């Protein structure tokens, strides 16, 4: 089992009247944590939803590969986990019932499920709350449960759309630890964020602004190329241009 590599080639997408993405190119290397950074309305969500297969590009291609083997969109979908920006769990189902529902959706063998859910509950510290309905969880715990449901399937590509919005600093730290804990050889992570301090935690950042990809690279490289010390300066400079 190896992580997935995703490549976006000259992708354009219109959302309603707005041109959300303009000929975007990006390479998301396998096994790394990628951050798509940019201000609100930069096209981050559109890009993530395109990668998740929820949208189809107007122009350009998105390709997925596992080591050297190219995967079709539907093959990739099977091993992709998507964590949307809007909370989307069933408020009247408990944490455990959520995991059981997703077990059936993913068609996981019971033994694997038992081990996996135990591991996830422990890692998230959610074991004491497993009988609590999702609607009664705090914001941070709710996000953790959402993440658990996605991770249950052991995705090879994890897409997180602004996972830390509306979460307190402690929970934010915990979410990051979780993501890093599960990322690695077996999982590529692509997340979007508008918190610039989070960008420096990624192995690779992709700077998106106004639907255009400004730059990609390690945080250090990008900062050097833009001659800045803080990511927010990119957008401040770009906007004033």
């Amino acid at each position, binding site marked *: 089992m190896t992580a997935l590599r995703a490549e976006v080639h000259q992708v354009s997408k219109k959302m309603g009247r707005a041109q959300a993405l303009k000929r975007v190119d990006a390479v998301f290397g396998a096994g790394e944590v990628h951050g798509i950074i940019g201000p609100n309305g930069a096209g981050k969500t559109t890009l993530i939803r395109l990668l998740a297969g929820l949208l189809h590009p107007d122009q350009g291609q998105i390709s997925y590969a596992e080591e050297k083997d190219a995967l079709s969109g539907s093959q990739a979908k099977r091993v992709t986990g998507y964590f949307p920006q809007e909370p989307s769990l069933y408020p009247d189902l408990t944490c455990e019932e959520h995991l*059981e529902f997703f077990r059936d959706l993913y*068609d996981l063998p019971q033994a694997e499920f038992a081990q996996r859910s135990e591991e996830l509950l422990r890692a998230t510290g959610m074991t004491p709350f497993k009988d609590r309905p999702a609607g009664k969880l705090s914001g941070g715990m709710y996000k953790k449960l959402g993440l658990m449901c996605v991770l249950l399937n052991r995705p090879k590509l994890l897409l997180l759309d602004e996972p830390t919005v509306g979460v307190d600093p402690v929970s934010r730290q915990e979410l990051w630890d979780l993501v890093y804990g599960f990322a690695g050889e077996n999982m590529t992570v692509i997340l979007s964020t508008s918190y610039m301090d989070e960008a420096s935690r990624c192995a690779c950042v992709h700077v998106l602004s106004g639907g255009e990809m400004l730059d990609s690279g390690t945080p250090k490289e990008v900062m050097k190329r833009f001659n800045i010390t803080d990511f927010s300066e990119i957008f401040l400079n770009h906007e004033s241009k």
Partner: protein
Amino acid sequence: MKLRARTLKGFFVKEIIQIIRDPKMILAIFFIPVMQTIMFGLALTSEVKNIKFVVVSKPGKIAQELEARALGSGWFTKVPGVNGAQVADPEGLVASHKAEAVLVAPPEGFEKALERGAAPIQLLLNATNAQRAQQVNGYVQQIVAEVARDNGYDLSSGLIDLDMRVLFNHYMDTTSFMIPALLVMSTFIVLLVVGGMALAKEKETGTMEKLIVSPCSVEEIMVGKTLPYFVIGLCIVGLILFIGVVGFGIPFRGNLWQIAVNAVLFAVSALACALLISTVVHTQQQAMMASALFLMPAILLSGVFFPVANIPTMFRWLCYLNPMMYSVVNFRSIILKGGDAAFFWQNCCWLAVISVVLCAAAYKNFKSKLN
């Protein structure tokens, strides 16, 4: 086409848990059918009853007998404080709504009138509701004829001899007539509203996206989401049938398997409608409004209340497209007449054709909307 039992089971368990934990859902699923059954079984009846009736005549044997027989029939009631022998203005009684039907004898009394053969007996009716008045007229004529015959009068040249035979529903009992239709109407309402809302809820809260990106197929989402309501629909049919037979004593002359076949076909068509609605709405509220919009004409053109034969040709083709129509005539035929085989299969065939078309449309729409 990919349907895994495991995934469907997952959906089934999830939906049932959600229904059980949501009191509104339980209320909608069980309260609507039970309430409707009781209402139509007990309260709402098109049978003409409680007719306030006065016999105006000088005291006599016939007058007395007429009144006694009328009251004894159960259709008529006495008007308190009115003595038939002392009424001066019979028309006033009707005009003032004190009485609905007044039978007026000539001044010489009923005996004289009946002896003459041609009987100038007057019947005053409040005909603001023409249909009801016609029925009352029928009742009164029948009673007069019976009383006259019993007392040895020959009425061959006078009053119309009524000979009416009612088949299958001897007492024109509305309950027996309505409950088979309710099986369809209640179930359809619940499936359309609750099923449609369950689908819309998934969209509204964004969980539908989770299902789309999960490895399960479009068919699994579609069947998984509707299967629990299909089972619930069949349970509702059973519940209403039970209330009807045990609670209201309606005759059950057909076979259970016929009910089951019809119920299955019809539940599928109802859920296909719910699916279709869910593809055009985004929120539960919209789903609710869309189902209400759909239900009104669907019920009116189903033959539940108005016979399809009475509907002008222009609109009748809408009835023939309505899955409820076939189910209503079929259930009535199964329960009251014992379900004539040819008639049963004919309706089932049409119902099946409509269900297949609806399902295909729902599938196509659902799939294209999800992608």
